[in-house]
């Protein structure tokens, strides 16, 4: 039986007069990779921020791992958030901490982890993104692409059940982009994670997606597999694949 890991019903969000999300409905099952496309400013980032309670929706319902996030108190919400990884579009590395401290920050609450365990996880996470030798560097000493990859490593370190990727490959060269896309796929295969991937990168969509949706004017206007949508009759939909 397919179990819904993420359920979104009639999600609405406006900022003042700017109606960003009008009526979003989504069901994502365990182990699925869903790619979300849409023009810049169509509300993709807002959508995944609503999922983790960073932005409070104006209406509708979000259920993550069987829990309605609206009804959770802060402790329960924090517990739930530990099971959800979030890669920020801007990477959002902590400026005042070096790479090692950045990576171990999400682990700090876990009393079961000894310093050796944490170090092993950090090393593993750095190896995953191909940056073994930057542990002592500060974020300001990294290139944009390296920051992005460290952000990804930090997202993956808790081995979350759900991962929300906001443009994981933007700003990376084609080779690294492909490696990151491959990594996203490997993680899905290895840990059976459920992911939402926001991307404009056709290669990344092709590699990672099981299903795709395209958002326009606050609603999902097209849904299907990569092959279906890239061969769509609608020229506007096809334009995302060029």
């Amino acid at each position, binding site marked *: 039986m397919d179990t819904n890991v993420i359920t979104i019903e009639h999600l609405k969000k406006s900022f003042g007069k700017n109606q960003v999300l009008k009526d979003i409905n989504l069901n994502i099952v365990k182990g699925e990779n869903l790619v979300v496309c849409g023009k810049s400013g169509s509300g993709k980032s807002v959508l995944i921020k609503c999922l983790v309670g*960073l932005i409070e929706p104006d209406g509708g319902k979000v259920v993550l791992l069987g829990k309605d996030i609206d009804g959770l108190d802060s402790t329960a919400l*924090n517990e*739930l*958030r530990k099971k959800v990884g*979030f890669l920020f579009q801007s990477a*959002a*590395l*902590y*400026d*005042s901490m070096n790479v090692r401290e950045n990576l171990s920050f999400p682990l700090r609450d876990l009393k079961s982890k000894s310093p050796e365990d944490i170090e092993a996880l950090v090393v593993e996470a750095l190896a995953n993104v191909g940056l073994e030798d930057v542990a002592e560097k500060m974020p300001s000493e990294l290139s944009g692409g390296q920051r992005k990859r460290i952000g990804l490593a930090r997202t993956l370190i808790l081995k979350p059940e759900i991962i929300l990727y906001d443009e994981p490959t933007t700003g990376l060269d084609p080779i690294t982009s492909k490696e990151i896309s491959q990594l996203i796929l490997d993680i899905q295969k290895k840990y059976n994670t459920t992911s939402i991937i926001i991307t404009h990168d056709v290669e990344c969509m092709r590699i990672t997606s099981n299903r795709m949706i395209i958002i326009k004017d606050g609603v999902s206007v097209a849904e299907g597999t990569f092959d279906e949508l890239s061969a769509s009759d609608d020229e506007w939909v096809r334009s995302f694949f060029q």
Partner: protein
Amino acid sequence: MPDEMKSTATDKVTARIPAVYTNALTGFFEAATSGSLFTIRFFKEIVKPRYEFSEFLKQSYLIGYKSFPLVAITGFIMGLVLTIQSRPTLVQFGAESWLPAMVAISIIREIGPVITALIFAGKVGSGIGAELASMKVTEQIDAMEVSGNNPYKYLVVTRVMAATLMLPVLVTIADAIALYGAYVGVNLQGNVSFHLFFLQVFEKLEFLDVFPALIKTFFFGFSVGIIGCYKGYNATKGTEGVGESANSAVVFASLAVFIIDMVAVQITSLFI
């Protein structure tokens, strides 16, 4: 006109108040409400574990130790200048021997705490405001939140605690250095031994000079910390928001220092 006839008296009055004022007023009450909620949250979070002890120590070091040179220099100058300025008046009244005690009382009761707190507001308040604001606009605070860690506890509680506990220490040091400055000032045109100077000072100093002055510095420190954090935590509008937060943190923290000082004086005078 039927429309006009329908409108009530209050509508007419409010219609005459320009929108600027009503906006400013609602803005003020909104800020007051969210500021109060932010402060109440501090007292809720501080009692709940997990205690971010190492971050608190780090902030105490950054806030306390790094402000030390500035506070020391201003303290010395404060004592020296106050002594030089006060001498002619006291000489006129033939009360030159009162100089050490008078200067000491002014420093310890009022000038030491207030000047140090203002410098603290300028250095630490703006620092906290800018740091948290830049973390806010680059989504670092959001990132802490989604990783299931409580950024309020990690960032705000530690900084406010460090500011609250470090300012009294800094003021005490500034007072001591200012007294030394006063001793130097006295000796520019006279000859009073170190021993005699401090004998004269401590003879006149009373519990009610020292204790209330010390207590109020905790409040100064708290308000500088909480205002800096509030302004930073609620920064908006990208990078320009960072400058704005730092700036208004200093303005409001300095204002808060004066207001608290005024209240403290009123309360103290009940006992004297």
